[in-house]
């Protein structure tokens, strides 16, 4: 019966090709646009590290100006970064299971051979815990341990791309690089790792490519590494040496911690409060106690990682889909009016209302399915367009199977809903009534 219905549907679609094409086009355009915007939203709104997002926390401490808050629009917030020396001390206290202090920097990789050209590469300066905290996958070697952190050893972990550029992709563990007049030893190469959004640094960009290399945080002092990311200051301090810069109240370090369980959150915050209270006695942290820890998803929300534009687009595109459905209903109605003769005849020959109704619904579902398929193609094109417009890293926005099923699902369900009323109208046609005048 189903096959027969599909056959009838196809036949009926062919009889009125322009109407059919219009309906399929309406659904396709509606699906194409809403799936495009929904995919972008879904990507921005995604959980970049679902297995751990509730035990990883960003730490903020209110070390800001006693006279005014860090963020005038959200006066309750503490600065989103911490000072260098506070981060250094929190690492030493090690109150969590693992901790990552970090900032963006860049270094010149000096040529080993005379013929090679030096070039600049982006680096994330961080503690060795970074790799295990964030489940970073390795192709070769591994990250560094806490003793390398403590000894400020010049070691480096390369991204897959940088290893490709420097060593042609081979196992480069043990090889050496010269940066900042220092010999660095390669100890690991990470595999493709694209957490989206880039949760560990929404401040410098949630949708950028990951860093080209990673080096120990404890090298900051000896190599005088400067931040390529943002730094925020409020205090007028005399800074004429790097050491003074490190000891200043400027907040430029991002600090994240991993706890054993989400339940340890309050206990950890108490540690931070205790640290700040101790600093208060030394005359720092003059604002009232105002420290927070944010888990990964709260941190994404804090930084409004999902752009408002994206939400507006999702809203507008679903209104668009509504227009497409209204069109489909209107078109179906008109089309079914034209089928009165045929329906009457079928009814007269013994087809029950149920059978007629089913047949109409199948026809609509076929139209919906075709519209969904074409819509998916359009969405693919749309995402290519968005990738180009926003100059985003390759593969950042792609249709995965969840979105594909969603697209087909929305197409069929919505077109069936659109088809209900017309189908009901059609099956109310009395048998043979139409035949009389013919």
């Amino acid at each position, binding site marked *: 019966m189903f096959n027969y219905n599909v056959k009838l549907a196809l036949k009926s679609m062919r009889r009125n090709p322009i109407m059919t094409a219009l309906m399929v086009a*309406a659904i396709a355009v509606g699906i194409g646009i809403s799936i495009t915007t929904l995919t972008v939203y879904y990507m921005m709104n995604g959980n970049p590290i679902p297995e751990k997002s509730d035990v990883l926390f960003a730490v903020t401490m209110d070390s800001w100006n006693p006279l005014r808050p860090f963020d005038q629009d959200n006066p309750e917030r503490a600065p989103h970064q911490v000072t260098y020396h506070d981060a250094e001390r929190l690492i030493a206290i090690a109150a969590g299971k693992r901790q990552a202090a970090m900032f963006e920097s860049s270094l010149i990789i000096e040529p080993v051979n005379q013929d090679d050209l030096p070039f600049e590469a982006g680096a994330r300066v961080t503690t060795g815990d970074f790799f295990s905290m964030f489940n970073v996958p390795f192709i070769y070697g591994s990250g560094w341990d806490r003793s390398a952190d403590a000894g400020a050893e010049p070691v480096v972990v390369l991204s897959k791309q940088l290893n490709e550029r420097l060593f042609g992709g081979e196992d480069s563990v043990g090889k050496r690089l010269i940066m*900042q007049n220092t010999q660095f030893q390669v100890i690991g190469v990470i595999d493709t790792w694209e957490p989206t959004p880039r949760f560990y640094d929404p401040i410098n960009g949630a949708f950028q490519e990951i860093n080209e290399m990673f080096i120990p945080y404890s090298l900051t002092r000896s190599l005088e590494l400067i931040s390529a990311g943002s730094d925020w200051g409020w205090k*007028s301090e005399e800074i004429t040496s790097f050491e*003074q810069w490190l000891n200043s109240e400027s907040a430029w370090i991002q600090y994240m911690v991993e706890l054993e369980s989400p339940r340890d959150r309050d206990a950890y915050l108490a540690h931070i409060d205790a640290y700040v209270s101790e600093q208060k006695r030394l005359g720092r942290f003059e604002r009232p106690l105002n420290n927070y820890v944010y888990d990964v998803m709260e941190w994404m929300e804090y930084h409004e990682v999902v752009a408002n*534009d994206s939400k507006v687009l999702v809203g507008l595109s679903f209104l668009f889909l509504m*227009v497409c459905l209204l069109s489909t209903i209107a078109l179906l109605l008109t089309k079914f009016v034209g089928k009165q003769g045929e329906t009457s005849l079928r009814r007269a020959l013994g087809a029950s209302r149920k059978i007629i109704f089913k047949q109409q619904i199948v026809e609509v579902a076929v139209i919906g399915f075709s519209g969904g398929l074409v819509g998916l193609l359009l969405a693919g094109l749309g995402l290519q367009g*968005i990738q180009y*417009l926003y100059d985003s890293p390759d593969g950042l926005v792609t249709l995965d199977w969840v979105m594909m099923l969603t697209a087909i699902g929305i197409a069929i369900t919505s077109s069936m809903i659109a088809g209900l009323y017309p189908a009901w109208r059609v099956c109310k046609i009395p048998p043979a009534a139409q035949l009389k*005048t013919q």
Partner: protein
Amino acid sequence: MGFRPMLSSLMRNKTGPILVALQIAVTLAIVINSLFIVIQRVEKINRDSGIDVNNVIVTYVRGFGDDFDVASSITNDIDLIRSIPGVVTAAVSNQVPLSGSGSGNGLRIVPDETVEAVSTARYRWGVEGLDALGVELSRGRNFFAEEVNFVFPASDPPAPASILITQALADDLFGDEDALGKTVYWGSMEPSTIVGIIGVMHGSWVGWDKLGNSVIQPGTQADTTNKYIIRVEPGMRDKLMPIIEQELGESNRRRVVKSVKSLEELAARSYRRDRGMAIILSVVITLLVGLTALVIVGLSSFHVTQRTKQIGTRRALGAKRIDIIRQFMLENWLITTAGAVLGVVLTVAVAYWMETSFGLERLDWRFLPAGIAILWVLSSLAVFEPARRAASVPPAVATRSV
């Protein structure tokens, strides 16, 4: 011919017209709100930056190694660039306007920390800075050569005696008072005197509502990464970019030429979200308007076919062709207008939602009549061809039985 036959024909088959009216209502809500956003973004992108964006090249260089002398490297580089034919001038700046990265400060008109400071982007460049960006002083004077010294990282120089500020910053600081010659105070409470005022110059962050606020200190910034701003003769930019990159690269192997980019490209990058939104919404509007028009054409063609007999009867009873065309046009106009009325309510609701939930600007009411006018024209165009076809139904059709 009156409304009566038309209304009665509309009433006989209510569902179809209601659906079309609904569709027009939602279309109106999307088109007006999208169009409003598009126009706002386009205006934002096309604001006058005060800078000769099309003829400026920006170069980022970085030295390395123990023996690297940043001051002499900068001096040699700038001399080299200025000697290239086609280059108007070149300058060192601590940050690049419209590029999205840079630093800012707070300024006050009284040395009192409890007074809220006015935020501004802070530039540092020498005598050639203004000319290199093509920015014009509206009043006062440029820096003197003796005011310009090298500033090294972590050297924490005292506040300069003379500074330039933009008119926008002057207005923020002093309101209606004349800012020229006045004193402002930095975070350290050191004073500086305003010696010149720049009419318009955009700062670094295009999304900032104080984009027009900039203060310029005299000096040559010698950082790890140095930024050269190069203005060239009109039309020479794309030809000169590879030449500059090559000549700089060859002149010193202890210095990496990180990038040579046009300021136009950097600015486009800063505005890419706004441009993206404008383009996406334009595509949405085009598709939507096209779809609605096609649906109106499709539906009215169908109705014409359905009502061939009625039309024939009217023609046989003496209705002229123009009457038939008028009937269909009027019928359509009535549906469109009903849809538009509902659409206005919906448009305002959507605009309210976007304003309150996402902080978008309030819809300009003038977009409402404009949107309705567009829909009227569009739906009339869409229905014209089917109506013309209806008018060509011969009166004799009435006498045939289908």
